[in-house]
């Protein structure tokens, strides 16, 4: 990105910030960090009011702006101890790792199912959190901000415990089962109406019995055998299966246990655990993409498409020249590209910004 590209980007960002929704819970207790060419070049900034932040962003226009997940009595004080910690949001970072500059974008949609499980099953379901906000990260993932007051006081280690739970670290589904009770070795196991991993395991097993019974045992292909097995599981009795030995049944259920945690995406342990962490300001622009770290409601998750919904609002068009080959992407709800190196194209300003900031295009000067 050359100087003139950069100065145009700055103007676009500044104009976006003049209108942007910048409400931040506890803004006066947050530390801010900004960067012009990388994420954080200076930190320990503080803003008493959203309008102060807006003015700063309009006039100084950093390419990256983050705020602390923590609340402090003196957010601008240094060193850290002098800030006086008052608590912190619980923040989860779902980040996608993929090959190539544009490799992650087609996969963003897949992360949504993990995000949905993380929020519905784990954060709201198992943890019982209520104040949950979702935001696009502005590039390759999503952030979940949890602000329930009784979770704010948790320390780093205690947060690590939550991350481990979500990732299923130390989870052994064999511990769900126990033998005994009656004369015949009865296998006690989880019921579908139980909470946490136990309940989910039972539900997944029931689903497998219905959808693909032979994945557990050939004998379950018979409807009658299936019904007996299912009826047992509903009451936490796993003995009523065509599998002779309890231990063998448990081993045959191993593939179900693998589906339990949110494993395909790193719920970044560092972010959740590190209380001095700064996280991208919701609704601010990610300087590597020009995409907005857009806030959306959990109920909108299914419909939210970052490459359509997180572009800056813009109606003007501008000509760019591509500096490298770029694959096709669905930007602003339309198939865009592919583009070849040296190709010149008139594009919507927000789309042009995306390619310029990615280092794939440059603006053609008149």
């Amino acid at each position, binding site marked *: 990105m050359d100087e003139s590209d950069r100065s145009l980007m700055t103007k676009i960002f500044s104009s976006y910030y003049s209108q942007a929704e910048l409400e931040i819970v506890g803004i006066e207790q947050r530390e801010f960090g900004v960067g012009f060419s990388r994420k954080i070049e200076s930190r320990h900034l503080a803003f008493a009011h959203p309008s102060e932040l807006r003015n700063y962003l309009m006039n100084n226009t950093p390419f990256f702006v983050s705020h602390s997940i923590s609340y402090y009595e003196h957010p601008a004080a240094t060193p850290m101890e002098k800030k006086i910690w008052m608590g912190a949001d619980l923040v989860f970072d779902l980040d996608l790792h993929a090959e190539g500059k544009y490799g992650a974008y087609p996969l963003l949609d897949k992360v949504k199912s993990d995000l949905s499980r993380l929020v519905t099953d784990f954060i709201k379901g198992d943890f019982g*959190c209520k104040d949950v906000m979702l935001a696009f990260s502005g590039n390759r993932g999503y952030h979940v901000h949890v602000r329930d007051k009784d979770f704010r006081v948790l320390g780093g280690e205690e947060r690590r415990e939550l991350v481990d739970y979500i990732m299923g670290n130390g989870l052994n589904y064999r511990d769900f089962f126990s033998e005994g009770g009656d004369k015949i070795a009865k296998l006690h196991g989880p019921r579908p109406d139980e909470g946490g991993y136990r309940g989910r395991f039972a539900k997944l097993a029931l689903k497998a019995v219905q959808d693909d019974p032979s994945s557990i045992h050939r004998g379950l292909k018979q409807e009658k055998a299936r019904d007996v097995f299912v009826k047992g599981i509903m009451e936490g009795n796993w003995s009523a299966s065509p599998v002779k030995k309890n231990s063998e049944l448990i081993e045959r259920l191993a593939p179900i246990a693998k589906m339990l945690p949110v494993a395909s995406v790193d719920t970044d342990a560092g972010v959740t655990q*590190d209380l001095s962490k700064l996280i991208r300001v919701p609704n601010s622009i990610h300087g590597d993409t020009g995409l907005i770290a857009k806030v959306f409601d959990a109920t909108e998750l299914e419909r939210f498409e970052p490459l359509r919904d997180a572009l800056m609002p813009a109606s003007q068009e501008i000509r760019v020249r591509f500096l490298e080959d770029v694959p096709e992407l669905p930007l602003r709800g339309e198939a865009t590209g592919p583009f070849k190196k040296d190709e010149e194209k008139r594009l919507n300003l927000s789309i042009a910004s995306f390619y310029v900031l990615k280092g794939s295009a440059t603006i053609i000067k008149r």
Partner: protein
Amino acid sequence: MDDKELDFAVKYPFTDEARKAIAGITLTESIADRGVERIKRALEGDMRASVSLRGSDKEESIASFAASRMILGFLRNPFLTSRFAVNEAKIAHGWLDRADEKEVDAVARIFGIATTPEKGLMLITLPVYLRFSPRSVDYRITNRRLIRGMVEITYHEKKRLVEEAVRKHVERIPLVKDPPELIKQAGEKLLDSLPKTQAGSGKLPSGAKVEDHPPCVERLMESMRKHENLPHQARYFLATYLMAIGMNDDDIVQLFSDAPDFKEKITRYQVTQIRKRAYSVPSCATTLTYGLCVAVCRIGSPLNWHTLGKERKSLIKQQMAGSMERVD
């Protein structure tokens, strides 16, 4: 204050009731001396306690706890403070074991530990559970019934949570900058009476360089130096690892002397047992389930750290540092 209330205050000297019981009492040399004794008992791991004291003796016993805290606030030695907190918490647990449910609840309530009964067990809110459960495998939420922010625990576990809450509470000792002369003297007396090794040398045994351990071990050694109370699995892991890299028993015991509940005899016995039975160093997968893994080394066993080249090592550490800096 009636006898029952006074007994409650003697048993749980960290409560408001205790503060009230000694409100009118002035510090005497005898109280300060008992404060010193109380800390020394903690160093010996002496958890015995009794309320079979009479009248003013009870008040002096409560006051001795306050005196201990002032001495510790003046000395600002994290090792002493930590040992004291562990011991006082264990004493309190001893009382809880002998108490009825009403009394347990009264102490639990101080720390916001409230439970609701559920089919012979109890439910507690997740944040409170996380704050006060010991960091050990048995208490990991992965292995617990967890539903809508409530964790299932037993009555026994509830008391263990209260113990942990007491420990954390007692450990937070306000700084005492300019204490009464009696406290200063008591503090000096206490330091003089300590064998030199017991105060925790903070030095690493020869043969072990901090720079050259895998990140998980470095983290544990750092915690140890800060006199943090490491869970059993962490200590076991550390001991097997140090043995494997060739450290002798004396040096290992010395290293563990920084632990807040250090008892040389017990530590030495455990270290000897580990060596005798040739227990192996837990794999990376196991350290992960213990919650001790802190980096992405991809080496399978912490011992393989020593087979890595310099560049790879620094890359792993950079990535660790990087993950702290990343915002995306």
